[in-house]
């Protein structure tokens, strides 16, 4: 299989101190990110309505996403992307590939 990694021009996880986060070194799934961590969306797996809906909600390659918090029972998880907040369940977040950004100190 081969999916093409797509990147948007000049849209790295830019942090004031660190510049752009290294590519393809911290590939993981969205549900693996902990509270406060950030990542760049690489690809939404799955297909059909599921994938379409996530893409339409802005889960596009190159979009920055941040974990706001886990629900008191661990599931679902609140994320921030494109300036709004949305909660996903683990099973859904597991289908979103992300490139984890290094933690800012």
């Amino acid at each position, binding site marked *: 299989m081969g*999916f*093409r990694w797509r990147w948007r021009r000049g849209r790295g996880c830019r942090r004031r101190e660190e510049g752009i986060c290294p590519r393809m070194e911290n590939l993981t799934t969205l549900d693996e990110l902990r509270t406060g961590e950030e990542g760049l969306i690489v690809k939404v797996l799955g297909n059909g*309505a599921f994938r379409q*809906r996530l893409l339409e909600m*802005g889960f596009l390659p190159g979009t920055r996403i941040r974990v706001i*918090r886990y*629900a*008191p029972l661990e599931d679902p998880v609140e994320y921030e992307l494109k300036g*709004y907040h949305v*909660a996903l369940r683990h099973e859904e977040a597991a289908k979103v590939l992300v490139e984890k950004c290094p933690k800012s100190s």
Partner: protein
Amino acid sequence: MSEIVVALAGNPNSGKTTLFNALTGARQKVGNWPGVTVEKKEGELRTNGHLFRIVDLPGTYSLTPYSLEEVIARNFILEEKPHVILNVVDASNLERNLYLTVQLMELGRPMVIALNMIDVAKSRGIYVDAENLSRLLGVPVVPTVGTKGLGMEDLIGVLIEVAEGRRESRPVHLYYGREIEEALSELVDLLEELHLLPAYPRRWLALKLLEGDREVLSRVQREEGAEPLLSRVREISSRLRQIFDESPEALIVEARYGFISGAVREAVRISAISRKTFSERLDDILTHRLLGFPIFIGVMYLLFYLTFKLGAYPVAWLEDLLKFTEESLRGLLPPGLLREVLVEGVLGGVGGVLVYLPNILFLFLGISLFEDTGYLARAAFIMDRVMHSLGLHGKAFIPLLMGFGCNVPAIMATRTMENPRERLLTILINPLMSCSARFPVYILFAGTFFRGHETQVVFGLYALGIIMAAVVARFFGRILVKEEDLPFVLELPPYRLPTLRGLFFHVWDRTRIYLRKMGGVILVASVLLWAFSAFPRTGGRPPELSRSYIGKAGRVLEPVLAPLGFDWRMSVALVTGFVAKEVVVSSLGVLYKAGEQTTQTLEQALQASGLSPAAALAFMVFVLLYVPCVGTLIAIWKETGSLKYPLINVAYQLILAWVMAFLVYRLGLLWLG
């Protein structure tokens, strides 16, 4: 005066309802979209010589065929061809809101954008240049603050100008990139050549074909001579898939967002104040890992306290009023059929439901507060894990919880759920939540036969209801047509201070629907049920309960209920409980005490009747599970828009009640003797 039809479209939480209310005031009509559970609202607006008919489309994020609401929204625009689309856009969440906008732009109707919540955007340092945005999209953009009514005059003026063609509204064509554009223009030509679906915008059709939109595909398939087009679509899609290693529909989403981020970059200025917003701070507490649950439980407790404790005072006043009316009627009217109809049928039935109106008002007020502040979404966030294990959405929690009070407003509260399938499921299992009307039955039987263990018994009954709800939810979840595997995406909008006006509208809306829907049908139902208990007359006077039609029905049912250990009087009482569950107790009172010395209480009479504890337990289980009361059935009927579902409820609950009561009775005989 010509009518201008305006379709109101926008994302959920964009302020659509607020704008709708601000524009139409109280001149609204609420109903359902034909044949579905989705609510349809229409309102009127008259201003200097113009009559607007504003149709509130369901709030959606997109216009795919995957959800009922989205199909309703786009079909309304395509088929009814409103004069103008009014798209409400949340300025503080512009990018995602514009995703719907660009899709609306493709439907080939004139459009006006209400750039709402500019106050919120400003407070977050987001400045949107409306003129610039308008130029980029080719559509008039009017800044508004729905809650304060700012910008309404401008909006109305622009709507009139656009509807009369005095102002341009020509949505720009998005550029989808060379390959897709080539494909689109080829498909557009083919559509024209083959004369397929000429009533629809061609470019939109071409886009939908590329996206593989199943609704449009099946519509094209039904046309004659569509095969060359369809095979061409398949070729083009697979070619695009090869070139980009991505599905055409995903490419289209990306292109749209590409266009949007371009527009946002040009029209929006952000003066970065990236401090935590007030809303985020509040969420740190309200959805905190440890504090979140206790606070949530406290809030729910407060809701119930408000509903039942504070509501109890006006309820008592209404009861007094009812009693007074009843006595006046008895005094004014001579004994006879008319007095009986009015006092026992109308007052007894309708009045009996109406006295709970204050409770219901408080409940609606609480729910509206949750909705308007944004706490409802947090409640769903906190409870989703639990509800998910039942195959339900987090948002199902509040309607189910309310069911413990009364199933009627609880079923109406499912309106906060967007997914029709999950909503239906929540409605179907709601009567299994043991409403407060069933409580008197438990008190009577548990107090009589399980003295000292009442708490355990009553708790067990509530738990049984919940367990049955879980089982039934799983069962129906399998049967009900499974919708496309839509992800759980729960938007958590920022907390907002509710406005009095907004709250008033919400409560008023719900109450009005409650009264109108309930009023008429309950009147008819209670008079009918009264008639069954008051006929056939014996010498011009009402018969004994056991001789009435309802009593006879109870006797007919006796053999069916005998395996559960119930005698004929219990069967009769169960039949009368169809009016309202608490009636079971008053019927038992009449039936058991008839002919006995009057000093005996109902408890003593029951004990003296030789009923076994096992049968008493089975009876409570039966009352918990058997048919919903008339009011609940009517609510189910009205909310689902179909008689099928109340019938399903009656059928499954009767079967469930019989089987469970039978098991309880037999096992009870073994253990309790």
